[in-house]
């Protein structure tokens, strides 16, 4: 259904040196700082990191959904299917949002408009992108709801969000996101606000719709357990930067960055899930207090060395397809790089 053909052999999404900033007291501070990554067609890429490390800002930047007049893309490039969408205006974005690239959010309780029926909100995305009749749209939305596991879908289209549970609403959000069969879905912590049992169902559903539609997903989560189950590749973010980037297997077998190690350590064992990573002492520095030089994780790092506060590490490839940004590895040291 999508206009985009598979002609373009490059990655589906390419983010290059993205910088997104917020003004604090008149000065702009980077919430996303020099982030680069790619997402291949049909793959699930996990983005992990603690609260406040810029995961949402990064995904909102890609969607051009940053709070209006506040957040600003300061630099870098976003390429979707080979097209540079970095400077797209609202009108241009509206042509692709919901159609080529969709997003679902953390809070299913507030993400739907309380005064419109589920059917109305679901059909809206269809009307935005296709010329179809009301009747067709209604049928399509009923079948979409059924495809996301809502059995009473004929009734649910007439209902209002407050009549549905959190899990049901997130299913509706997913139905909305896949209605136009986009190539890319950004899911920003889609299960954080849900009960544990419901979380598993929603993740299963995401996996299912992903394979049926052959779509790529950027899955943002706090939970490395989720990453292990769902993802092909992982990006670990800290304080607005990518600190490690590799495949899921490699990440768990061979974590390089001390922050990643800490994250893996803090996965609750014995099958007890917890949704927040609480066990790393300290917090992500606020935008204003971000160190300008050196590693931003240094003050919390168990393996910190004196150099860590003076040398700013760079993402370096320590192994095929495994990049890390920590001066424990020579590849991350700016100098060595320059010499190489």
């Amino acid at each position, binding site marked *: 259904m999508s206009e985009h053909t598979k002609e373009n052999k490059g990655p589906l999404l390419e983010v290059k040196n993205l910088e997104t900033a917020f003004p604090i007291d008149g000065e702009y501070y980077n919430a996303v700082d020099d982030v680069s990554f790619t997402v291949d067609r049909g793959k699930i890429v996990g983005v992990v990191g603690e609260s406040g490390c810029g995961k949402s800002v990064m995904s909102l930047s890609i*969607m051009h*959904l940053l*709070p209006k007049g506040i957040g600003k893309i300061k630099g870098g490039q976003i390429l979707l299917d080979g097209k540079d969408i970095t400077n797209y205006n*609202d*009108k241009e*974005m*509206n*042509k*692709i*949002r*919901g*159609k080529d690239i*969709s*997003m679902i*959010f953390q*809070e299913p309780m*507030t*993400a*739907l*408009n*309380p*005064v*419109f*029926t589920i059917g109305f*909100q679901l059909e*809206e*995305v269809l009307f*935005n*992108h296709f010329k179809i009749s009301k009747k067709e749209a209604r049928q399509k939305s009923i079948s979409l709801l059924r495809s996301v596991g809502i059995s009473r879908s004929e009734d649910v289209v007439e209902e*209002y969000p*407050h009549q549905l549970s959190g899990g049901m609403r997130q299913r509706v*959000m997913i139905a*909305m*996101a896949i209605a136009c069969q986009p190539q890319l879905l950004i899911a920003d912590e889609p299960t954080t606000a849900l009960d544990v049992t419901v979380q598993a169902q929603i993740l299963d559903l995401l996996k299912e719709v992903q394979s049926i539609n052959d779509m790529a997903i950027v899955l943002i989560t706090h939970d490395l357990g989720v990453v292990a189950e769902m993802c092909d590749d992982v990006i670990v973010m800290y304080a607005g930067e990518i600190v490690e980037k590799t495949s899921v297997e490699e990440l768990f077998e061979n974590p390089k960055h001390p922050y990643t190690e800490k994250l893996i350590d803090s996965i609750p064992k014995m099958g007890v899930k917890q949704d927040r990573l609480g066990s790393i002492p300290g917090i992500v520095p606020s935008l204003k207090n971000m160190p300008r030089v050196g590693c931003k994780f240094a003050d919390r790092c168990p393996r910190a060395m004196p150099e860590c506060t003076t040398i700013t590490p760079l993402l370096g490839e320590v192994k095929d397809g495994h990049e890390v940004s920590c001066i424990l590895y020579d590849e991350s040291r700016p100098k060595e790089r320059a010499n190489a």
Partner: protein
Amino acid sequence: MLKYTLRRLLGMIPMLLLISIVVFSLAMFMPGDPLGGEIDPTNSDPEYIEEMREKLGYNDPIHVQYWTWVTNFVQGDFGKSTQYKVQVSELVKSRMLNTLFLGISSIVITYIFAFAMGMTAGRKAYSKLDHFIGGLNYFGLAVPNYIAGVVIIYFFSFKLGWIPFGGSHEIGLQPGTLEYWISRFHHVLAPAIVLGALSTASYTQFLRNDIIESSRKDFVRTARAKGTSESKIYNSHILRNSVIPLITFLGFDIVTIVNGAVITEAIFTYPGIGTLFLNSVNNRDYSVLMTLTMFFSLLVLIGNLVADLLYGIVDPRIRID
């Protein structure tokens, strides 16, 4: 819904009884009595006066007087105006229609202006236009309606001659003709604007703030993520949410308008129940006063009921049953 309405209406009965006791007592405690209007003023024979007092029931015990008044009242017999020498029901009916016309015009004007200005200001928040509308609103809030009324009459009637000085329509027009209605509208325009100024200003400001608040809500982001256009987001997604509280204000408007009508009608010498009320106070026309007071109280109760019912109708999250 029907059951709820009936229940609420039934619940009003004890309330109204209580109010009627208060109204009756107040009338009793007020100085003088309306006897003066009922008897022949040239005849000051004490025997004649005593006879009339007896005849009109002024010598009955208080509770009997009260009971007579209440039973007559619920049967639609509000007594006779001592001032105009006609049945109060007759008097109130024609005045009521005028006030109703004024009230409805005022509400329509209020909502048209409030929506136009509130939506513009909310969407273009913190722009020059927003500040301009905000300024207008503070003006509307700060200037009392009797001053606004006088200023309007001075400029637009006296100086420019654009609007009539008073009355509800030109004399001698055939009711029901187009000219008649145009004339009525012409007469009602200025008082309606003045009467609605306060509400217009507060609704505009309310709508603006609500739109700004709603525009930051998650569901707006969801709509954007679907590719919904900016104007559709404002005119449908946000507005539909902000309209809910505004619509429910309609119930309170009934109260505001009845209260405001007293002063506004007096300034524009508009023959509605407001002027009637003031006249009756001045002339101690008790039967009219008591009727109007009961009437105002009933309107307040009904206004509140309307507000609650509207809430149930316009907000899907609230089910009334």
